[in-house]
C-alpha cells in the first residue's frame, strides 16, 4: 500500500491550496452563517423558525414542487431516453445536440424560455386563443415554475437514461418476451430495475437542484412562494439576516439529506448543479 512515488508531504502540498480556498471561502463563511442563524440561542431560534406557518408552508411547497418535477422528469426521460438510446434515425446526432443545448442555460434563461412559451406574449397563449378563444397564461405562477424546472431537468436526466440504457442487456428482454411477458411486465421487471441506480442518482440531483434553484423563480415572479424566494425576500427586503440564515440552513439540510439517502442507495457520487 505504501506508495514510494507519491510521499505524503507531496500529497498534502498538492491538496493544500484547494483546501485552503475551500476553508476560507466556504467552510468558514458557512460556519459563520450557522452562528448567525442561531442568534445566540440556537434552540429557541430554530424552534420559532420551524413553528412559523408561513415558512413551513413555503418549505412544504418547495418540497412538493421539487418532488413533482422529479417524478415527471424521470417518467418523461425514461420514455424518451429509451427511444433515443435504441433507435437509429436520420438526424439523431443533431437532435441530441439540440436536446443537450439547454444544459448550459442558467435559471434566468430557463425562466425566460417559459415566458416565451406560456407568458403574456407566449406561444401557448397565442395558440389557445385561436383554438379555444381563451388565452392560457401560466408562466408567472407555480405551474410556470414547474415547467421551468422540467425544462432544466429533462436534458440532464435524458443523458443519464441514455447512458444506462445502452448498457442494458437486450437478450434479457427478448427472453422475457419469448416467455410471454407483456411490454408492461418487461418494463417493470427488467428495464426499470436495470435503470434504477442511474434514475435514483439523476432524480436526487434533479430534486436537489429544484430545491435550491433561484433564477427561474426570480425571472417568472418574485412572489412565487418557494423557499429560495422566501429567503431572498427575508434577506433583501426585510433585512432579516437571522431568519434568512436559518432558512438557508434548513434548505441546505433538507437538500443534503436527499442527496445522502440517494447516494447510500446507489453508492455513487451525487451532486446538484444548479
Amino acid at each position, binding site marked *: 500500500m505504501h506508495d514510494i*512515488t*507519491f510521499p505524503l508531504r*507531496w*500529497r498534502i502540498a498538492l*491538496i493544500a*491550496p*484547494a*483546501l485552503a*480556498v475551500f476553508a476560507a*471561502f*466556504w*467552510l468558514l463563511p*458557512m460556519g*459563520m*452563517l450557522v452562528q*448567525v442563524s442561531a442568534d445566540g440561542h440556537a434552540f429557541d431560534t430554530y424552534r420559532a423558525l420551524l413553528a412559523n406557518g408561513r415558512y413551513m408552508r413555503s418549505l412544504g411547497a418547495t418540497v412538493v414542487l421539487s418532488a413533482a418535477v422529479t417524478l415527471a422528469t424521470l417518467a*418523461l426521460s425514461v*420514455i*424518451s431516453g*429509451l*427511444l*433515443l438510446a435504441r433507435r437509429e434515425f436520420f438526424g439523431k446526432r443533431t*437532435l441530441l*445536440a439540440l*436536446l443537450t443545448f*439547454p*444544459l448550459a442555460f442558467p435559471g*434566468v*434563461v430557463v*425562466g*425566460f424560455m417559459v415566458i416565451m*412559451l406560456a407568458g403574456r*406574449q407566449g406561444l401557448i397563449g397565442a395558440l389557445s386563443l385561436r383554438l379555444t378563444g381563451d388565452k392560457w397564461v401560466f408562466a408567472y405562477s407555480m405551474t410556470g415554475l414547474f415547467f421551468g424546472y422540467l*425544462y432544466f431537468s*429533462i*436534458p*440532464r436526466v435524458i443523458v443519464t437514461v441514455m*447512458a444506462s440504457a445502452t448498457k442494458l442487456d437486450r437478450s434479457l428482454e427478448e427472453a422475457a418476451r419469448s416467455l*410471454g411477458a407483456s*411490454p408492461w411486465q418487461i418494463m417493470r421487471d427488467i428495464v426499470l430495475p436495470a435503470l434504477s441506480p442511474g434514475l435514483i442518482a439523476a432524480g436526487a440531483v434533479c430534486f*436537489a437542484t429544484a430545491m435550491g434553484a*433561484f*433564477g427561474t423563480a*426570480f*425571472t417568472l415572479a418574485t412572489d412565487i412562494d418557494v423557499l*429560495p424566494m422566501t429567503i*431572498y425576500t427575508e434577506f433583501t427586503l426585510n433585512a432579516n439576516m437571522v431568519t*434568512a440564515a436559518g432558512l*438557508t440552513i434548513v*434548505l*441546505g439540510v433538507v*437538500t*443534503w439529506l436527499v442527496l445522502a439517502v440517494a447516494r447510500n442507495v446507489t*453508492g*455513487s457520487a*451525487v*451532486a*446538484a*448543479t*444548479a
Partner: protein
Amino acid sequence: MSTMLETRTEASAMRRAMLRVKDGFSLRHLLAAGQWAVTLLICAFLIVPVVMSILAGLTVNYFRGVSSGLTLQWLEQVWTQYHDSVFLSLEIAAATLIITLIIGVPAGYVLARSKTRASRIVEELLVLPIALPGLASALALLVLYGGITAFRTSAAFIVVGHVVFTLPFMVRAVAAVAASTDLRTLEEGAASLGATFWQRFTTIVVPNVRPGIVAGALAVLTLSIGEFNLTWMLHTPDTKTLPVGLADTYASLRIEVGSAYTIVFFIMTMPLLVAMQWLGVDATGQRGLGNKPRRQRKTPSAS
C-alpha cells in the same frame, strides 16, 4: 406426477403467451407510437422557446409578429447598454478558470492517487458547495466578508464565489481521468530512472490527465458564464455579469431586448457547448465521476 403438472402449466403458459403475442404486437406498436409522441413533445418543449427567443430578438415588434420586419436594432441596443457585462463575465470566467486550474488539477490528481479515508473526506467536503443550494454559499460569503467593502464591491468577490462553486467540477473531471489511467506504474518507472517529483508531474501526470483538464475547463467556463444563483447575491451595481444583466432586462425591458440579450448569451456559450459535444464531455459533469472512478475502485489494486 410433477412432470405432468409441469407440462400442463407449460402448455397453458404457451397458449397464454401466443394470445399475448397477437394483441401484444399491436400494443407494442401503440407503445412505440406513444414513445415517439413523448420524445417529439419533449424536443418541441426544449427547442421551440429557443427558436422563439432568437426570432423575438430579431423582430421589429414581437407583438405584431415577424411580419413587422427583421432588425438588428435590439442587438445593437443591448450591446451599447450591456457590453460591459459581457466582458466582465468573460474576465470573471477566465480568472475562475485560472484559479481552478492552479488549485484544482493537483487536488484532483491527489484524490485519484490516494484511496485513504482522509482523501474521501476531502472529496466529500469539496463537493459540498454544489450539493447545497448556491444561495447558501452566497449568504455565507456575505455574512463573513460583506463588511470588507473593498473586497465586497470588487469583481474578486464574485470570482471567489465562482471558484468555490466550480472547483468540484475541475477536481472531479481530473480525478476521473487520473483514476482510469495507471499513473502509479508510469510514475514508478520514471522514478526508478531518477525523475524528480516535479519532472514526473509535468511530463507524466499533466499530459495523461489532459482530457480531464480540458473537460473540467470547459465545465468551469460554461458554469461561470451562466452562474446566477450566487452571482445575483454577490454582485453590486458596478459588477453586473451577463446573467445578472439578463435578469434585469427580463424584469424591466421589452421582450425584444430581453430576447436580443439572450441571443448574446447563446452566442457566448455556443462555442463552449459545441466543444463539449465534440469532445464528448458530459455537460452535467456527473458521468465523469459517477462511473469511471467506481469502476476503477472495483478492480483490485495492482500491487
